[in-house]
């Protein structure tokens, strides 16, 4: 084995999961098994974790994009691939959306980490992970009206976020998921359900996001619960 072949073998061995997503080989579209960091919700509600992160989400199977992540390209992709936005129309697990010729399904997930690994999500479904747009949504229940709160997110890569139908954050370009990378202006969480929605766009490689609410002092808001439409 030449040194070059040996090097290629080592690379393939260490990044096999990534290489498996390459566009070249035709492959089965059958699901590959459960995502290691995600699970189907097993309870009606889930309390935010100790650091305030929202760990229960509905995720729509990825939509193909051109992979561009600039401000204008992201906004154009979101406009072109918009899904129903009314807070009253939060989807359910298993609902399907027609996107082009495809029927894409919503999936309810709990994440074991602070972040939601969209690469795990898509890979497990045998869906593309590069040059894609993920729609995600969840419902945050506040025990009382909370003014001065901020949605704080990180995403790999670009993302745009809405709270109760109002756009509150947009971060663009190829970037790593960093806790509290994008922070909204002050907003008011209404008592009861609040609908959070986001579009996360990835170019290539890993893709994930995290989200929590911060209070006026910049500390995580605790005592929130997350639920999905039954």
């Amino acid at each position, binding site marked *: 084995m030449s040194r070059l072949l040996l090097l290629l073998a080592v690379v393939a061995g260490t990044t096999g999961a990534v290489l498996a997503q390459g566009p070249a080989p035709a492959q089965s579209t059958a699901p590959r098994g459960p995502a290691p960091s995600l699970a189907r919700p097993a309870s009606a509600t889930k309390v935010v974790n100790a650091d305030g992160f929202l760990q229960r989400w509905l995720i729509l199977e990825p939509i193909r994009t051109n992979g561009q992540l600039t401000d204008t390209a992201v906004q154009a992709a979101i406009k072109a691939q918009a899904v129903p936005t009314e807070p009253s129309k939060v989807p359910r697990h298993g609902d399907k959306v027609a996107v082009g010729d495809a029927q894409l399904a919503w999936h309810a997930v709990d994440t074991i980490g602070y972040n939601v690994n969209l690469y795990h999500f898509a890979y497990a479904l045998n869906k593309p992970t590069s040059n894609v747009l993920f729609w995600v949504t969840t419902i945050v229940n506040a025990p009382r009206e909370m003014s001065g709160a901020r949605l704080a997110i990180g995403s790999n890569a670009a993302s745009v976020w809405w709270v109760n139908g109002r756009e509150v954050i947009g971060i663009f370009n190829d970037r790593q998921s960093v806790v509290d990378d994008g922070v909204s202006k002050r907003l008011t969480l209404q008592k009861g359900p609040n609908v959070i929605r986001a579009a996360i766009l990835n170019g290539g490689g890993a893709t994930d996001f995290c989200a929590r609410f*911060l209070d006026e002092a910049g500390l995580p808001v605790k005592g929130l619960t997350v639920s999905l439409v039954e």
Partner: protein
Amino acid sequence: MGRSRKVTGPFVDNLGIDMLQGGGKLFLASGGRFIGPGHFGLLELGDGVQKFSMHYEADLDRGGISVLDIRPLLWRDGWPVAGENFKEGTYQIESARTGTALELAVQGTPVGGLRGRGGGRGAAGGGGRGAGPAGEPAARNPIPAQEASQVSAEWPAGAIDVRMSPYMVQAQQKWAVTPVANAGGYPGSPYFKIAIAGTDRALTATAERELVVLPTFTGRPEQLWRIEQLSDGTYRVMPKSIPDTQGAWALSAIGSSMPTLGRFAADSDRYRWSFKTP
């Protein structure tokens, strides 16, 4: 300068030399058009902000009369240092919290245009990187600075948010800071207008204690900015006032990419900003 823990001395300077033995350091000398500073007076403004008053013996621009000045008081290694009042200019405004720069939230255009190294055609933003006359080694050609007039046609016409991003020497990241006449001031300085260089798009505080860039400067209090040097040489930036809001609110970095207004805390880098010349 010399100092002692006892009023009876010995007073020693920054090298530990007794002032009776030749020690001592001048706190502030003449400079510019001002001669003979003296009569130090401490102004304790709270929140970790200190200034000092003094008189110059002579202002050469005013026939040599004695004039009052107020300047920031800084500290280095436990010794007072005379700071400088903020001077107008065009700046990169960098957060001490993140190291990134305040910018208009618009899509940037690479300086010199999109990649055109080797003489390729440039897009908006300056003529193509390295573009030069035929036959001339392109890499040797200086790339001119990006002006707002080259790229602002793509910017929305109305109010635009602000954010923080790595500084890329682009037009939406360069701020012209100019004193505003007849708008009052604070110890040592007038209020300033902060606008995207080459435009009238002015940084404005909102009633929600957030920030926005409005297309025009009207001189309203929420567009007048108090810029004061802190003891470490960085600056605190505060609006003159905010509609329907009491208290002192300062430009603050929250998270990695978001500026806002928060209650100033002297011990936090969130409220510290550097003004760097682009």
